[in-house]
C-alpha cells in the first residue's frame, strides 16, 4: 500500500461521509420514532396478539448487539428471502428497528408517569380515547420523555458508526479509507472523532432548547 498525503478531494469525501451518517441517523430516528410510538400504543392499550409479538421483537432488538443485528439483516435476510439488499438499506432498516425498540420503552414509561386521575376525569367527561391521547397524554408525555429522547438520539448517532462494517461509506468508513491511504491515523481519527463530537453536541443542545421551551410553557404543570 502506498503512503500518500492528504489531497483536495479529501474534504469532499469527508462531507459525503458526514452526509451519509447524518442521513442514516435522521431516517432511522424518524422512522424509528413512528414505529416505536406505535409499539408503545399497542402495549399501553393492550392490543391482543400484536402487543406480545412486538414485545418479543423489541426485547431482541434491545438485548443484542447492533453489529450482530446489522450482519443478520445484511447477510442473513437476502439468503432467507432471496432478495437483494444494499448496505444502506440494511443499515436504515436495522437502525430503525433498534431505535424503535428504545423509543417504545421511553414512550411507555413517559405515559405511565402521568397521573391516572386526570385520564379518568377526561373519560368521565366523554372525551374519546383518541382525543385523550392527543390532547392530554401526548403533550405531557413528550415533556417527560424529552431528556431520555435526547440521550437516545446522541447514542444512536454514535451507533451509526457501526454501519461502516457492512460497507456503507459513512463518516467512519471515510476515516478508514483516508487512514489506509495516508497512514496518518492520529490526524484522521481525531478529525472523525471531533466531527462526531460536534454533531452530538449540536444535537444535545438543540434537544435541550426544545425541552426548555416545552418546560417553560409547563413550568407550573408540576411535571
Amino acid at each position, binding site marked *: 500500500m502506498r503512503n500518500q498525503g492528504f489531497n483536495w478531494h479529501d474534504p469532499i469525501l469527508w462531507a459525503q461521509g458526514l452526509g451519509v451518517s447524518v442521513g442514516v441517523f435522521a431516517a432511522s430516528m424518524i422512522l424509528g420514532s413512528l414505529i416505536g410510538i406505535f409499539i408503545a400504543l399497542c402495549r399501553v392499550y393492550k392490543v391482543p396478539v400484536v402487543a406480545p409479538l412486538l414485545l418479543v421483537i423489541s426485547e431482541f432488538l434491545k438485548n443484542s448487539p447492533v453489529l450482530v443485528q446489522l450482519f443478520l439483516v445484511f447477510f442473513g435476510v437476502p439468503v432467507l428471502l432471496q432478495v437483494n439488499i444494499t448496505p444502506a438499506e440494511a443499515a436504515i432498516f436495522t437502525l430503525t428497528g433498534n431505535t424503535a425498540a428504545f423509543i417504545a420503552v421511553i414512550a411507555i414509561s413517559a405515559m405511565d408517569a402521568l397521573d391516572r386521575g386526570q385520564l379518568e376525569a377526561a373519560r368521565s*367527561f366523554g*372525551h374519546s380515547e383518541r382525543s385523550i391521547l392527543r390532547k392530554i397524554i401526548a403533550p405531557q408525555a413528550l415533556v417527560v420523555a424529552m431528556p431520555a429522547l435526547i440521550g437516545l438520539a446522541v447514542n444512536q448517532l454514535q451507533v451509526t458508526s457501526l454501519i461502516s462494517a457492512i460497507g456503507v461509506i459513512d463518516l467512519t468508513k471515510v476515516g478508514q479509507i483516508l487512514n489506509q491511504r495516508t497512514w496518518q491515523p492520529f490526524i484522521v481519527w481525531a478529525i472523525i472523532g471531533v466531527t462526531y463530537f460536534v454533531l452530538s453536541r449540536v444535537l444535545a443542545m438543540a434537544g435541550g432548547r426544545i425541552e426548555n421551551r416545552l418546560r417553560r410553557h409547563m413550568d407550573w404543570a408540576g411535571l
Partner: protein
Amino acid sequence: MIEIDQLHKKFGDTEVLKGISLTIAPGEVVSILGASGSGKSTLMRCMNGLAGLNGGSLLIDGLDVSKPRELREIRKRCATVFQHFNLYPHLSVLENITLAPIDVLGRKKAEVEAEAFALLKQVGLADRADAYPGQLSGGQKQRIGICRALAMQPRYLLLDEVTSALDPEMTGEVLDVLAALARSGTTMIFVTHEIAFAREISSRIVFLDDGVVRADMPTDRFFAEDGGYGDERIARFLAKMRNK
C-alpha cells in the same frame, strides 16, 4: 331520572356493592353518606361509567351505562367533580374548563369561553383564567373543577368527596359555591363526609353501610331521633363524625 336497580360491583373476590337500588329524580339534591369502604365512591364511579357493573342495572334518563354508545350520551349529561381535582396540569384554567364542551359537545370556542369566564366570575376566580393548575391552591383548584363540570351544562352533577382533600379553611370557599348551586335547582349527588353541610343543602340522605342502602330518607327524617338517627349503626357513625 337516575334509576339504579339491584346494582352489584365486585373488585376481585370482594363485593363492594351488594344490590343497591335507588331512584333519583331531576332537581333532587342527594347526599350519600357512609363510612370509608361502604361503597359510596364506587357507586359514583358506576354512575359515570368509570367502573363497570357486575350485576343489576343503572339507567340515567333511560340510557344504560353498561352500553358504550349509551354511556357516551350519559357522559354528556353527567359531570363529575373529583376528590383530587384531576385537572389537566398542562392546560390553563380556561382551557381546562372549555376542553370538554368544545371537544365532546362540539360547541363553538368563543361561546364556550364566554360562559367559562362567567363561571369563573361566579366562583371568584375571574382573574385566574390564564393560570395553570399548579399555580393554584387546593380550594381554587376545586372551584375550577366545579367550573369544568358546570361548563358541560350537565343535568346531573356528581360530587365525589370534593372537600376531602382540602384543609378546613378552603373547604368553606368550595362549600359556598356548592350551596349556591344547590339552590339553583341542579340535580346534585354528593358523596361526602361533611355531615353538617349535607344536612344543610340536601333534600335527601342515602346512608350506605357495607355495600347496601341502610337508610334512604328525607334529610329532616334522617337526623330525627325516631328516623335515621334512631338506627344504632347510623347513630354510631354520626357520633363518630361529630367528634372528628
